[in-house]
C-alpha cells in the first residue's frame, strides 16, 4: 500500500513539469437558452479529436486545445447540438453557450450521459435526469428518485416498497446522499415508502457506486449527488400535480431578470385529511408528510455567483384520545431533516474555478406524549438528533490538455444526541421536571483534504487518480486515513472501452438499525474511542460498448469490496435501550461483497429503456454474532433483474413499464423446537424454545412485480397538462414484507405467516406546467 501511495505522489509531482506551450484554453458556462439554468454534464469537444470535456456541477467547462482555429461542438442529450467556429486570437477565450431544448427528442431519452460512457475514465456512475424519472411508472402517483435508482444494476431495494437502497453490498448508511452538496441523513418519508426528494425541484441526479474520485469521502459504498434546480432567470413558471395521496407545487422565476432567480417547491400528503370523515367521532389520529425546497441564486458578475438553498421535510403520526371532561392524551411520532447551504462560485481565471460552500444539516426523531388525567399533568418526550455545521472549498484547475486537477478541503462539526428523554409532571404535591441523557452527547470534528487529476494520457488511455486524506477527532481520540483512488480506461476503439478502478474509503459515522428496514428510529452515532471508523476497499473492472449509432449500449462490471470495523446492534438490543448505545453494539465487523452487473440499454428512438442484471454476494462477520461465522447480509440478493421500457406513440401519448425480479430477502428461519433447562433450574415455566437457523441462512420467496403507466399530454392555453395513470403490482404478486409466528393457544399448533404489503394499486395524478 505504501508503494502505491508513493507512486501516486510521484505522478502528481512529475506532471507539473509537462509543457503546456502552444495551447489555448476555451472556458465558460453553458446554460439553458430559455431559463438560463446552468446545465450539468454538457459535452464540449472538438469533433474528430480526443479533445473534449463536460460541464461541472455549476455548468462550467474549460478545454485546453492546440492553439489554432478550431470547430467546437456543444451537445447535450435532449438539446439541439451547437457548432461554433473558434478563431485563434493569441490568447485564451471565454465563450458561454445557451442551448435550446430539442422538443421532438425530449421524451425519447431514458438515461442521460455526461459523455459517452466509453470515453470516461471514471466507472460505476449513473446519471438520471428528472425527465427519465418521470417516465417510470409511479407508485401511488408519486414519482420517486430513489425508487428509480433501484432499477439500475448494483443498486438494490430493501423491503417491499421502501426507498432505502443498498449499493454493492453496502448498508443504507454507507450511501452519502448530498442535496446541493449537503448530506441528508434520512432520505425517507412514511417509513421508507417515499424518498424526501421532490422530483419537481430536482435538476440532476448522479450516483457513483465505485471507482470514487478523491473528492468524495466519508461513506463506504456510494455517493448520490442531487442538484436542485436554480430557478428560471427569464420568466415566471410553475408546475404541480395532484395525485392519490399528495399534491405539490413548484414556482420559479426571476427576482431581477438575468441576475437573480428563485425556485420554491412544496409537497404535502393529504391522507390524514381524506380519512378524517371516515374515522369515529372520538378518534383524532392521522399521518402526513411534507417537504419544502427553496433556492435563490444571484449573479454578481461574470466571475461570481452565489446560491442559497434550503430543504425542510417532516413526517408526523399523531393520535389524540379524549378521556372525557378535561382528561386527554395526545401522542405523536415525528421525524425530519433540515438542510441549508450557501455556495459561492468564483472563476479566478479561464483555468481555475472554485466553489466555497457553507452547510448546515440536521436530522431529528422525536416521540412524545402529553396526558392530563384527574388534574395531574405529565409530559414525556424522547428524541435523538444529529446536527452538522460544515465549510468546504473545492477548486478545479484545468492545467493543460492532459490534466484536469481538482483539490480542496472540508471541515464539519458534528453534534450527536443519540437519545434524550425529558419528563415533566405535575401532581398534587410535587412538580417533576427532568432531562435524562441515555447516551451522552458526542461532539466531533470531521476534516478532509483531497487532490485528484483527470489525466488524458493519450488517445487510448485515460486515468483519474488521487488521494483523499481524512481526519476525525472525537472523545480525545484522533483517527486519520489516507485513501488512494484510481480509475483507468483503455479505449479499444471509439465505441468500446475497458476500465478498472480501485478505491479506499473510510467512514466515521454509523447508523444503528435493529430492523434492517430503515425505520426513523435508526440511530446515527459517531465513531468513538471504543467504536472505530469503518473502512472499505473496492476493486472493479468493466467494459462498455456502443453500437448502432450509439443508440444502444451494453456494459458490464465486476467488483470486489472488503469492509472492516463495521458495527451492528448486539442481539436483542434496540434504540430504546436502557443503556448507552456503545454498550449494546458489536464492533470490529467484517464485510465482503462481490458480484457482476450487466446493463443493456437503448437511449434513442420511440422505444427506450434498459435491462439490468446483477449477480451478487454480500456477507458479514462479527465475533459475537452467528457464533463468529460469516453470514449473509439481510439484503444479500443473488439475482436481481430490472426491465424498464418506455414507448412514445405520439406527442400526446406515451406508456411505460417496469418489471423487477429479485432473490428473496435473507432471514433467520425457525428450524426446530427443543427443551431447555434441566438440572434443578427451571425458573420460567415455558421451557420449549425455538432453534433458529444460522443467521440469514434462508430466503423469503423471490420478489417480482410489474408496474404499468400511461401518460396523456395536452398543450393548453396556459401551458401543458398531463394525466398519468399507473398500476403498481399489476399482476397482484404477494411479495413478503415480514414473517411472524402465529400460535394457536388451544391446539398449540404453530404457523409461520407472511405479511404482504401492497396488492395491485391503481393510481392517477394530474400534472400541470405553465
Amino acid at each position, binding site marked *: 500500500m505504501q508503494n502505491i501511495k508513493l507512486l501516486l505522489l510521484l505522478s502528481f509531482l512529475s506532471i507539473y513539469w509537462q509543457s503546456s506551450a502552444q495551447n489555448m484554453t476555451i472556458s465558460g458556462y453553458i446554460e439553458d437558452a430559455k431559463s438560463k439554468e446552468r446545465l450539468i454534464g454538457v459535452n464540449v469537444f472538438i469533433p474528430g479529436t480526443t479533445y473534449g470535456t463536460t460541464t461541472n456541477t455549476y455548468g462550467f467547462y474549460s478545454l485546453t486545445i492546440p492553439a489554432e482555429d478550431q470547430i467546437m461542438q456543444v451537445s447535450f442529450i435532449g438539446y439541439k447540438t451547437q457548432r461554433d467556429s473558434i478563431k485563434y486570437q493569441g490568447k485564451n477565450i471565454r465563450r458561454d453557450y445557451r442551448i435550446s431544448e430539442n422538443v421532438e427528442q425530449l421524451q425519447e431519452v431514458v438515461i442521460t450521459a455526461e459523455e459517452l460512457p466509453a470515453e470516461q475514465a471514471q466507472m460505476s456512475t449513473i446519471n438520471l435526469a428528472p425527465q427519465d424519472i418521470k417516465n417510470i411508472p409511479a407508485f401511488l402517483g408519486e414519482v420517486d428518485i430513489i425508487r428509480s435508482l433501484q432499477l439500475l444494476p448494483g443498486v438494490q431495494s430493501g423491503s417491499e*416498497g421502501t426507498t432505502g437502497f443498498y449499493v454493492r453490498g453496502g448498508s443504507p448508511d454507507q450511501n452519502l446522499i448530498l442535496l446541493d452538496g449537503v448530506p441528508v441523513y434520512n432520505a425517507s418519508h412514511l*417509513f421508507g415508502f417515499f424518498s424526501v426528494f421532490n422530483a419537481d425541484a430536482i435538476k440532476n441526479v448522479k450516483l457513483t457506486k465505485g471507482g470514487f474520485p478523491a473528492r468524495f469521502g466519508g461513506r463506504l459504498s456510494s455517493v448520490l449527488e442531487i442538484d436542485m434546480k436554480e430557478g428560471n432567470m427569464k420568466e415566471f413558471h410553475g408546475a404541480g400535480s395532484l395525485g392519490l395521496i399528495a399534491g405539490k407545487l413548484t414556482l420559479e422565476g426571476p427576482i431581477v431578470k438575468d441576475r437573480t432567480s428563485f425556485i420554491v417547491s412544496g409537497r404535502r400528503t393529504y391522507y390524514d385529511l381524506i380519512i378524517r370523515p371516515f374515522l369515529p367521532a372520538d378518534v383524532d389520529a392521522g*399521518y402526513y408528510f411534507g417537504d419544502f425546497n427553496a433556492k435563490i441564486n444571484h449573479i454578481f458578475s461574470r466571475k461570481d455567483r452565489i446560491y442559497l438553498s434550503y430543504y425542510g421535510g417532516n413526517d408526523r*403520526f399523531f393520535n389524540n384520545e379524549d378521556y372525557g371532561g378535561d382528561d386527554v392524551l395526545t*401522542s405523536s*411520532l415525528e421525524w425530519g431533516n433540515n438542510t441549508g447551504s450557501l455556495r459561492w462560485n468564483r472563476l479566478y481565471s479561464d483555468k481555475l474555478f472554485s466553489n466555497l460552500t457553507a452547510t448546515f444539516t440536521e436530522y431529528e426523531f422525536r*416521540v412524545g406524549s402529553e396526558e392530563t388525567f384527574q388534574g395531574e399533568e405529565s409530559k414525556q418526550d424522547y428524541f435523538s438528533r444529529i446536527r452538522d455545521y460544515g465549510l468546504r472549498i473545492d477548486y478545479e484547475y484545468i492545467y493543460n490538455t492532459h490534466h484536469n486537477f481538482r483539490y480542496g478541503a472540508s471541515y464539519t462539526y458534528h453534534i450527536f444526541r443519540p*437519545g434524550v*428523554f425529558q*419528563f415533566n409532571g405535575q401532581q398534587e404535591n410535587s412538580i417533576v421536571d427532568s432531562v435524562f441523557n*441515555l447516551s451522552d452527547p458526542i461532539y466531533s470534528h470531521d476534516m478532509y483534504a483531497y487532490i485528484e487529476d483527470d489525466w488524458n494520457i493519450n488517445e487510448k488511455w485515460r486515468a483519474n487518480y488521487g488521494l483523499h486524506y481524512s481526519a476525525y477527532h472525537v472523545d480525545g481520540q484522533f483517527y486519520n486515513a489516507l485513501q488512494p483512488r484510481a480509475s483507468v480506461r483503455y479505449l479499444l476503439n471509439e465505441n468500446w472501452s475497458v476500465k478498472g478502478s480501485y478505491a479506499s474509503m473510510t467512514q466515521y459515522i454509523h447508523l444503528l438499525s*435493529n*430492523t*434492517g*428496514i430503515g425505520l426513523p428510529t435508526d440511530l446515527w452515532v459517531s465513531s468513538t474511542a471504543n467504536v472505530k471508523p469503518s473502512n472499505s476497499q473496492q476493486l472493479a473492472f468493466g467494459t462498455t460498448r456502443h453500437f448502432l449509432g450509439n443508440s444502444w449500449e451494453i456494459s458490464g462490471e465486476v467488483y470486489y469490496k472488503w469492509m472492516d470495523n463495521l458495527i451492528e446492534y448486539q*442481539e*436483542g438490543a434496540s434504540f*430504546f435501550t*436502557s*443503556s448507552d448505545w456503545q*454498550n449494546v453494539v458489536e464492533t470490529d465487523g467484517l464485510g465482503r461483497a462481490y458480484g457482476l452487473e450487466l446493463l443493456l440499454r437503448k437511449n434513442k428512438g420511440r422505444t427506450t429503456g434498459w435491462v439490468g442484471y446483477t449477480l451478487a454476494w454480500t456477507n458479514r462477520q462479527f465475533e459475537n454474532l452467528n*457464533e463468529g461465522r460469516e453470514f449473509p447480509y439481510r439484503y444479500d440478493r443473488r439475482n436481481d433483474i430490472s426491465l424498464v421500457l418506455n414507448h412514445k406513440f405520439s406527442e400526446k401519448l406515451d406508456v411505460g413499464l417496469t418489471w423487477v425480479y429479485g432473490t428473496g430477502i435473507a432471514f*433467520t*428461519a*425457525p*428450524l*426446530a*423446537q*427443543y*427443551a*431447555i433447562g*434441566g*438440572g*434443578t*433450574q427451571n425458573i420460567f415455566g415455558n*421451557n*420449549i424454545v*425455538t*432453534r*433458529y*437457523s444460522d*443467521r440469514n441462512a434462508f430466503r423469503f420467496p423471490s420478489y417480482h412485480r410489474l408496474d404499468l403507466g400511461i401518460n396523456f399530454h395536452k398543450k393548453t392555453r396556459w401551458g401543458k397538462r398531463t394525466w398519468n395513470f399507473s398500476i403498481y403490482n399489476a399482476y397482484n404478486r*404477494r411479495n413478503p*414484507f*415480514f*414473517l*411472524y409466528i402465529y400460535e394457536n393457544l388451544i*391446539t*398449540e*399448533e*404453530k*404457523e*409461520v*405467516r*407472511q*405479511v*404482504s*404489503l*401492497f*396488492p395491485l394499486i391503481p393510481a392517477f395524478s394530474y400534472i400541470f406546467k405553465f
Partner: protein
Amino acid sequence: MRKLLLAIPVLFVSCTKSFKEELPNAPDQLVLNSLLNAGDSLNIISLSKTNSFLTSNRPPLLADGFIEWSINGAPFGPITPCDSSQGEPYAHYCNTQALREGDIIEVKANYPGFEELYARTQIPDSPQIENIRLENSDPFMATHTLYFDIQSDTRKKEYFIVEVFSQTTNFFGQSLHEVQLTTKDVTLEMLGVSSELIDLPIDDPIGLKCFFTNELFNGSSKTIQFSLTQTVIGGGFSVDKLFLFVTKCSPSYYEYQRSKLLNRLTDSNPFKIPVQYHSNVKNGIGVIAGYNLKIEALN
C-alpha cells in the same frame, strides 16, 4: 411507541398467508442440558431431541441414551436415568457426585443414529460480596436502595448475574418473586422480561437481572447500587423477606442466561433478528454450564 410502530404495516397490509411450504426441514438434533451449581449433590442431566418447529407435539424423551461424565479428568458413568421425566419434555439422568468450586466437568452422550455429544464447563468459585446495606430511602414510597461490594480476580475474565427476590406470603403460602431493579450505573446490563421494559425509556436502566463482567471492576472490587421499587416488592402481597442472589457464572452459563432473556425480550417484534439460545454442546445443542449461587437475606 412500540404499538405505534407495529401498527404502521397494518395501514397497508394487503394480506397474510401461511409460509408453511417454504420452511426448511431441519434434521433432528440431540439436546443435552444441565446447569450445575457448586455444592449440589444431585446433578441432573437431561437428554432430548429436537422436533419440527410447527408441530404441537413436545420434543421426544430419550430415556435410553448413554451418558458419562468426568470430574477433573476422572470418569464416571454411565449415568442412569432417574425418575423425574414425567411431564417433562426430556429424560433426566441423575448423578449424586457433589460438585466443588473449580471442578472441571466433561459430559459425553451417545444415542443411536447420532454423533457423540460433548460439552465441558467449570464450576466457578463463590462470589465474594461484602458491605451489604439496604436502606429504605423513601419510606413514603417504600423504595429501597441496596448497596454492596463485589470482589473479583481481575487477572481473568469473570462473569456475574445479580437478582433480588422477595419472599411473599398469601393464602396459597410462601413464594419467591423477582424484584425489578433500577440503577444509575449504565455500564451494567439490565435485562428482564417485562412489558414495561420495552416502553418509553426511563431515567435509569431497569431489569430483573443484572449482567456484568469484571471488565468493569476498578481494581478488584465494584460497588453496586440498586433501587428496588415498591410496586414489585409489594404488589398486594405481604413481603416477608428480601434476598440478594449473586451468581458467579461460567461463560456458558452467563451467555445462556443472557440469550434466554434477550430472546424473550424480542419475541413479539416481527422485524426482530432472532436471538439464538446459547449452546456449548459439540455435535448437538443445549448447554452444560456451571455456576455458583450465593444467597444473602437482606432483612
